[in-house]
């Protein structure tokens, strides 16, 4: 990971999560971070914006500005919202090329959230990332 390019939100995530002791504190932090997600309008929680491959419903909206991608995401599940917020902290504002190569596993591991990055569809962070990459590649 190229340290200097880390967005401020990502640095903040590192500070917060690497200091967390135990699952309860981690869970509380995730729920707090989940609250920071920009809310989606009801109309945006559409089938079109739904990410396939997550057990819980997740919606994702992407927009591009000056070759940099901005994402908004939401879910009904609170801890999943926290995970989405942590993901966005890392990838928001990247260009398509950086998005393609970002190592999400490494990112979550670094935050002590590696176990949350399920290989199954149970939470679907991987599906969200794939969807981001697909949207940015269009």
């Amino acid at each position: 990971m190229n340290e200097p390019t880390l967005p401020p939100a990502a640095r903040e995530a590192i500070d917060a999560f690497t200091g967390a002791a135990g699952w309860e504190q981690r869970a509380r932090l995730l729920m707090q971070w989940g609250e920071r997600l920009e809310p989606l309008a009801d109309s945006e929680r559409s089938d079109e914006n739904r990410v396939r491959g997550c057990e819980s419903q997740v919606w994702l909206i992407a927009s591009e500005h000056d070759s940099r991608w901005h994402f908004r995401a939401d879910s009904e599940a609170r801890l999943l919202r926290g995970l989405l917020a942590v993901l966005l902290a890392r990838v928001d504002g990247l260009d398509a090329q950086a998005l393609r190569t970002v190592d999400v596993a490494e990112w979550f591991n670094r935050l002590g959230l590696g176990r949350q990055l399920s290989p199954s569809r149970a939470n679907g962070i991987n599906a969200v990332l794939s969807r981001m990459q697909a949207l940015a590649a269009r």
Partner: protein
Amino acid sequence: MLSSPWRSDFPALAVMEAQGEVYLDSAATAQKPQALISALTGYYTSGAANVHRAQHASAERATRAFEGTRTKLASWLNAAEPTEIIFTRGATEALNLLAYGMEAHIDAGDEIAITALEHHANLLPWQQLAQRRNAHLVVLPLDKAGHIDLEAATQLIGPRTRVLAASQLSNVLGTQQPLHRLLPLAKAQGALTVVDGAQGIVHQRTDVRSLGCDFYVLSSHKLYGPEGVGVLYGRREALARLRHWQFGGEMVQLAEFQHAQFRPAPLGFEAGTPPIAGVIGLGAVLDYLGGLDQAALAAHEHRLHRMLVDGLAMRDGIRLLGRPDCALASFTVEGVHPADLSHLLTEQGVAVRSGTHCAMPLMGRLGVSGAIRASLAFYNDGADLEVFFCALDRALELLR
């Protein structure tokens, strides 16, 4: 404290315990007894061979052991003869085999009856068959407790009903279905009856002849055996009505380039090399299970289940899905997303399942988008449930 005398027969439980894990997801797949591990090791250590093909010594040993499991299953289910047992990859494949095998008997306008609580494996093959043949899929409704509504079934099963496919025990509701009263309704109309015993066989010995079904399916991996092995029981006359489905290997009697004749069941429906070690392993598991004190086992499972249901009932805001008879309990918590709850149970080492449990349409009918399921096996202890409830309380404290 309720403790399982069979727990130590399952080496994984000690390993999981040492890692702080509690396994309450046996309805998804069961842990395996040492008897299975030894059988697999024994088989692969003493010389593997393909079955039914060669006459050399290792092939004879393998074939004898493989066919031995068929015989054990026939007696386990009280089938009339071993040739009524077909090995498949799992319950899902067995149900697909049936839906394709019966295709020729379904005409436009015919009806296929299932129930509202079927697992996707006992819904989708019939739904797709109905679509291919322009037939109707008729869904039998449930009562409040989660049993098939027999009055409604009496109305809905009629002269156009060709097949009735129903579960013995719901994998979501834990309800035992009134098959002894349901199946005769279908038989009276000349329909073929299919029982999905994937969950049922794990918690009750089943006599397919007294049940009176034409077909019965189960999955080895839920019955403490290896994955990749399923069983299709078919009454001899019912099997004879199935069209061959998969082709190849030893299922053929006579093959020419443009024409072939196939063997009857069971071999005619077992195309290709079967899961030999798995089938042999399942035989060892049946031997192990058969040696246990069935009454003690049932009593233990019953007590565990009571603890589970009572413990959930004691807690505020928990809604049980249906009124489970045995094996498991599914629930939702007011104001709490099941994914959040299962996330925090996972963090505390408790393995339960959350989601739609491969029964999306049932979830729709129950008006929930997902639920948590805790499911039991006879190797579970009272202590497992204590850990579960303690973890549940802490998780809910955080989430509410």
